[in-house]
C-alpha cells in the first residue's frame, strides 16, 4: 500500500535548481572577495535537500572506485536496460521480474529523506520510489520468512572497482522482515523526479533512512526472503565496526570515530557540525527495536 508515510520535509524545502545555481555563483563571487566565510551557513541546519550536483557527485559505490567522485566518473558505463530483479527464496511467486514490469505494478511517490552515512556526513535527498513492502507483497511473502537479503549487480566489465578486493563481491545487504515492510523503507528509482543516476544505484536501490547509508544497497539484482539472518558485506569485512542493524545511533560510536555528530554536506568549509539524531530522526521506527540493547545489536 503506497502513501503510508507523509514527508516531514516538504517541497518548499527543495532548493530549486535555478536558485541553487545562482547561490553557487553568489558564493563564488563572494569567495573572490575573500569574504566567503559569510556565505557558509546558507543551508540552515541541513534540513533543505541537497542539490542534484551534491547528491550525484559525492557517492560511496565501491564497485566504481573508492573515491567519492569515482562513481560519478566511472558509472556511466553501467548498462541498466534491460534490468531484471530475481526475487526468490520464501516467496509464493519467485522469478525474474523485469524493471519495467515492477514499475508498472508499483506506485512511485516522492520521499524527502535525511541520509546519514556511517562516515559521519549527511545529506537530505528527494527520492522517488515505491515502498519495498509493495514489491514484497507482489511476490507473496511466505509465513516462515524472517529476513530479506539483497544483492548488487556483479559485472566486472562495467564496474572497474571490482578488480580490487576492497570487499567480498558482490555487495550484499539484508533487513529483518519487519524493517523491510516498514512504510519508511523504499526502493528508490529516481531523484528530483528524474531517473536515478547510475552513481546513485540505478535503476533501483534500497533506501532505509534510519540506518547508515551502506545498508541502502544499490543497483539491486536479487531479493531473497530467508528464515535466517543473511550475511551483509560490511559486517563480513569488519564485524566490529559494522553490525547487521547499523541503525543511526549517536550513542554508539564507530570504533574509529564518533557518531554523535555529523557534517551536513553543502555547508561549505566553515559549516558547523550538527548533532546526529537517534534513528536519524525517524523515531517512528523505535518500536521495531523495543527491548533490544542497541549497543549490542549495533
Amino acid at each position, binding site marked *: 500500500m503506497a502513501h503510508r508515510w507523509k514527508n516531514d520535509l516538504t517541497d518548499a524545502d527543495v532548493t530549486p535548481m535555478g536558485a541553487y545555481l545562482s547561490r553557487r555563483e553568489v*558564493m563564488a563571487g563572494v569567495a573572490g572577495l575573500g569574504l566567503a566565510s559569510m556565505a557558509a551557513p546558507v543551508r540552515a541546519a541541513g534540513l533543505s535537500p541537497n542539490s542534484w550536483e551534491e547528491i550525484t557527485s*559525492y557517492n560511496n559505490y*565501491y564497485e566504481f572506485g*573508492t573515491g*567519492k567522485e569515482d562513481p560519478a566518473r566511472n558509472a556511466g558505463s553501467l548498462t541498466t536496460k534491460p534490468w531484471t530483479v530475481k526475487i526468490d527464496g520464501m516467496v509464493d511467486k519467485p522469478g525474474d521480474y523485469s524493471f519495467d514490469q515492477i514499475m508498472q505494478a508499483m506506485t512511485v511517490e516522492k520521499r524527502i529523506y535525511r541520509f546519514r552515512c556511517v562516515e559521519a556526513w549527511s545529506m537530505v535527498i528527494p527520492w522517488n520510489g515505491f515502498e519495498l513492502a509493495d514489491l514484497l507483497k507482489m511476490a507473496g511473502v511466505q509465513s516462515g520468512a524472517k529476513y530479506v537479503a539483497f544483492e548488487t549487480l556483479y559485472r566486472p566489465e562495467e564496474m572497474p572497482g571490482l578488480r580490487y578486493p*576492497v570487499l567480498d563481491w558482490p555487495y550484499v545487504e539484508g533487513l529483518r522482515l519487519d524493517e523491510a515492510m516498514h512504510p519508511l523503507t523504499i526502493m528508490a528509482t529516481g531523484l528530483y523526479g528524474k531517473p536515478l543516476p547510475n552513481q546513485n544505484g540505478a535503476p533501483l536501490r534500497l533506501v532505509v533512512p534510519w540506518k547508515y547509508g551502506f545498508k541502502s544497497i544499490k543497483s539491486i539484482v536479487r531479493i531473497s526472503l530467508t528464515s535466517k539472518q543473511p550475511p551483509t558485506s560490511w559486517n563480513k569485512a*569488519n564485524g566490529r565496526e559494522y553490525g547487521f542493524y547499523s541503525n543511526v545511533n549517536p550513542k554508539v560510536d564507530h570504533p574509529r570515530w564518533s557518531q554523535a555528530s555529523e*557534517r551536513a554536506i553543502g555547508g561549505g*568549509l566553515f559549516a558547523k557540525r550538527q548533532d546526529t539524531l537517534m534513528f536519524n530522526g525517524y523515531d517512528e521506527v523505535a518500536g521495531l527495536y523495543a527491548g533490544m540493547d542497541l549497543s549490542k545489536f549495533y
Partner: protein
Amino acid sequence: MLVDRLNAALRRVPVWAVYLVGALPPFWYLYLGLTGGLGVDPVKSMEHELGELALKLVIVGLAVTPLRRFAGVNLMKFRRSIGLVTFYLVVCHLLVWLVLDVQILSQIWADIIKRPYITIGMVAFVLMIPLAVTSNNLSVRRLGPAWRQLHKLVYPAAILGAIHFILLRKGFQIEPLVYLAIIAVLLGLRLIPRARKGAGRRAQQA
C-alpha cells in the same frame, strides 16, 4: 652524464624556492575549498589532500639519502626545507581536522585517546615536533652527534604516518599500503651496510 647535469641543475635551485612552493598548497586548497573546487565536501577533501601531500613529502625527504648514496643525485641542501615543509603541511592537516572538521574540543581529546588511527597520527606529529624545532644551524652545532640520533625519529614518524593512512580507510584498499611499502623500502635501504670510506660519503653531511 645525466646525474652530473641533474646535480648541476639542482645546485642552481635556491632553497627558498622549496619554502615558497611548499607554503602554497594550504592556501591553494583554501581557495579551491571556497570556490567549489574541492567538491561538495571541501573539509574532508582539504584534510585528506593535505595529509596525503605531507606523506608524499615524508617520502621525498626519506629518499634524499638513498638517492645520493645509490644514484648519486644530491638533494642534501634541500633536506631541511623538505622536512620543515612536511611539518608545516602536517600542522595544516591537523588544524583542518581540529578547526573545520571535529570542531568540538571535548570530542577532539576523546578522539585522540580513543581512536587508534588518530592516536597514531598524533604520535607521529608529536615525534616531528623536536625535529622541526631543531632544524636550524644553531641546533645542529649545539647538539653535535646527538642531532643525527634525534633526527632518526623521522623513521618511526614516517611509518606511523603511513599506518595512520591505512587505518582510516574502509575495507581493504591498496593506495595507503603503497605508501607504507615505499617508506619501508626507503628505510630498508638504510640497513644496507656501507663500504668503509665509501666514495659516496662526504664530511659535509648534516
